[in-house]
Every structure is written in C-alpha cells, then in structure tokens.
C-alpha cells in the first residue's frame, strides 16, 4: 500500500467516523426531544385530570370550584408541578354555551334569541405545556368541564318554584277566591326556577308547562326553554278567540338528573272563568 493510498484510506475512514458520529448525535438529540415531548403530553393530561377533579370539589355552599372565576381555574392549572419544574403550563378557560339538543338543530333560533341555551353549564378548557428547550412546540389538550352534579332540595320542600313576573290582574286571585271574572285576553306572566338543596338556583334547567283544565281552560305561551310562560285567558279556535267557563290550573314541571320534581301549579279557576293563584302540588314525575 502506497502512502497516498494510506492517506486516502485514513481520510475516508475519518469521514465515515465523523458521519456516524453526527448521525448518533442527531439521534440522541431527537431522543431527548421525544422524551421531553412525551413528558409534556403526560403533564398536560395530568393537569387536565386534576383540573376536572378540582372543578367538582365543593367550595363552600352553595358553590363548587366550577363556579369560580376563570382566573382561579388558570392559577389552579398553572401551578408549577414539582415533578416537571422546567415545563411551562398555560391554561385558557372560556365559558361555553351549550345548545340542547345540539348546536346545529338550535342554530336557526340563535339569531332570534330563542335557542334552548345552557349559558353557565360548561367551561371550555385548554391546557398547553411548552417544551422547555423548544418553547415553540406545545402539547395541547382541549376539553369541556361541565357543571358538577348537585343535590336538589328534597321533599317535602319544593325544588321547583313558580314565580309571577307581571302584575297579577285583580281578578286573578289566590286559590279559593271565586269572585273573579277576568276579561278575555287578560294574562299573567310567570317564570320557573329550580333550587338545589342549599337553596341556590339550578342554572340552565328546562321546564315544561301545562294546563290542567278544571272545566275551563286558557292558552299557554311558553318560551322554547320553558323558563318563562304567559297564561292568557282565552283560546283560539282558529276562527275566533273565546273564553271558556270554569277553572284551570297551570302547572310547571322540572326535572333534574332524570328525577321528576313536584310541579308547582298556578291555579286559575272560577266561573267564566275566574283565575286564582295557588301553590297546588302534584307529586310524581
């Protein structure tokens, strides 16, 4: 072997060693890179799980942590994790309006303001964990955290309340009054609310209203979410508006966790007809 050949061989060998070394270095770099990212993903998942559990924790009656301001959510999520002190966690919390049964079916009603909306029952949460070496890369998780399940006021107390919201005409009297004879087309506006065990109102619950005719009847104009209702003394027959003689009962029914609550009724009764107000309770779903 000549000197030139030896030098050439050493040169090629050196190049090969350098190439292999570079490859190995790149590989090790990417291995560390992958490991950091896996840790970031795991941390994001851990933070989301902890945040979901935190939201379901009571925070002094009547509240749960779910009811806390977004800043509390953010501070809860971004607290430094002792196992991963180098990772930066960001949290974004946004109130999410849910439409029931779903957004696409309620979309036509949204511009009209009559969609069946649940405005305070869900928070959209995003957790982002940045790679400490490459902060441009983040492990992102997005989910919904919804209102925790709570206990309703138990019988014999009423969990559903019917509340009048308009001036009650003089001839819409409490139950037992039978002296009234309200004018055709006179009305009373009402709203319903349900309350938890601690008396706090249940947000975003839907109600069902109905008339129990006791000889007479009227017309219910109910909002699509059932939270408000107007009883009108009169019935449209298609060709005329008429009033009927006799009593009527307006009832509102709420259901939480699939349990029917005693409807609270608004007794509208009398002759021709008179309309009374009375809390008459019907048990059962």
């Amino acid at each position, binding site marked *: 072997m000549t000197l030139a050949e030896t030098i050439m061989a050493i040169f090629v*060998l050196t190049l*090969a*060693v350098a*190439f*292999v070394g570079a*490859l*190995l270095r*790149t*590989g090790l770099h*990417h*291995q560390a*890179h*992958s490991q950091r*990212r*896996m840790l970031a*993903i795991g941390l*994001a*998942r851990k933070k*989301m799980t902890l945040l979901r559990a935190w939201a379901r924790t009571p925070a002094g009656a009547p509240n749960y942590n779910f009811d806390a301001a977004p800043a509390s959510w953010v501070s809860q999520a971004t607290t430094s994790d002792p196992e991963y002190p180098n990772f930066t966690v960001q949290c*974004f*919390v*946004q109130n999410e309006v*849910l439409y*029931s*049964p*779903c*957004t*696409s*079916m309620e979309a036509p009603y949204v511009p009209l303001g009559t969609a*069946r909306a*649940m405005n305070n*029952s*869900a928070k*959209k*949460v*995003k957790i*982002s964990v940045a790679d400490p070496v490459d902060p441009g890369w983040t*492990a*992102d*998780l*997005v*989910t*919904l*955290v*919804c*209102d925790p*399940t709570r206990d309703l006021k138990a019988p014999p107390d009423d969990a559903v309340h019917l509340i009048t919201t308009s001036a009650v005409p003089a001839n819409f009297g409490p139950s037992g009054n039978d002296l009234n004879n309200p004018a055709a087309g006179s009305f009373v506006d009402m709203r319903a609310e349900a309350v938890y065990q601690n008396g706090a109102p*249940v947000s*975003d*619950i*839907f*109600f*069902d209203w109905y008339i129990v005719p006791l000889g007479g009847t009227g017309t219910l104009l109910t909002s699509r979410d059932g939270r408000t209702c107007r009883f009108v003394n009169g019935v449209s027959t298609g060709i005329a508006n008429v009033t009927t003689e006799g009593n009527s009962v307006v009832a509102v*029914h*709420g*259901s*939480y*966790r*699939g*349990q029917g609550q005693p409807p609270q009724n608004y007794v509208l009764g009398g002759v021709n007809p008179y309309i009374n107000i009375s809390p008459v309770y019907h048990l059962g779903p």
Partner: protein
Amino acid sequence: MIALVLVVVLGYLGARALEYSSTTRMQQVLMAQGLAEAGMENARVKLEKDMFFPPLGGYGQYVFSYSEDMTDPANPLQVVGSYSVTLDCSKRESPYCIVRVQSVGSAGIRTNPRARYRIYAELDVSSYNRATNLAPNPTLFRYILWREGGVEQPSVELPFGD
C-alpha cells in the same frame, strides 16, 4: 468495522424515528381523548338539566346522535377537533334503567381526523337502589360502566341488543 458501526447507528436512528412519530401520534390521540371526554360531559349535563333530551322523534326511536365542533379557546376561529355523541335509550326503562352513551372524539378536521378516540359508558337512571330495590339510588345519574379505546374504529357503533 465502520460498516458494522454504521448499521448499528442506522438501526438506532430508525428506532428513534418511530419513537418520534409515536410522540406526535400520542399527542393527537390525547387530544382526541379530551374531545371524547368533552362529548361525555356535554351529554351528561344535558341529560341532567333538559327533560326533553335526547329528543326521540317517534315511538320506535331510541337512539339520538349529534356532533359538535370544538374551537381553540385561545383562538376561537381555529377548530381543533370535534366529538360525536350517540345516546341509546332502548334500555332506559325497568329492569335495565340505563342510558348508553358513546362519544367519539376526533382530533383535526372532522372529514379527515388525525386521531380518533372512543368512550362508551352506561348511565344509571334507576330511581331505586339496584341491590335493595329501595330509593334512593346512590349511583343515580352516574356512569356505572366506562370503557375507553377503539382509537382506530372507523365508525360509530353501539352494542345494540343484548
């Protein structure tokens, strides 16, 4: 010798490439899992508060399904994925008293998701304790069965029937 080292290093790098791609894949799967959980939460809170949910059109209809897109709370114009929820009420009445809920989270655009994740659960809607047949039921409106997985499942399927 050099060739041998080269083969070893290339093999090592090949394994790292797989690890790297699995990291990316894992992130997408976890995103899909979060979206599937969002669907379960969405269904639960509606079942709790809306007595007309799910809206079943007729006497013979027991299943209702819907999908929602999820946007990035930090960038509301960006859709990060979606979830599809299917509720089966065929076993809602006694003696079963369960509502079967399935949520499939999809990371990325709905028509071409980067990852999917499926959660199937059974919600207890019995008013009575299943052991004593007396009210109240301590597991009322809680998920009494929870299964996760089926990332590669191509379509939404419920285990209809027994």
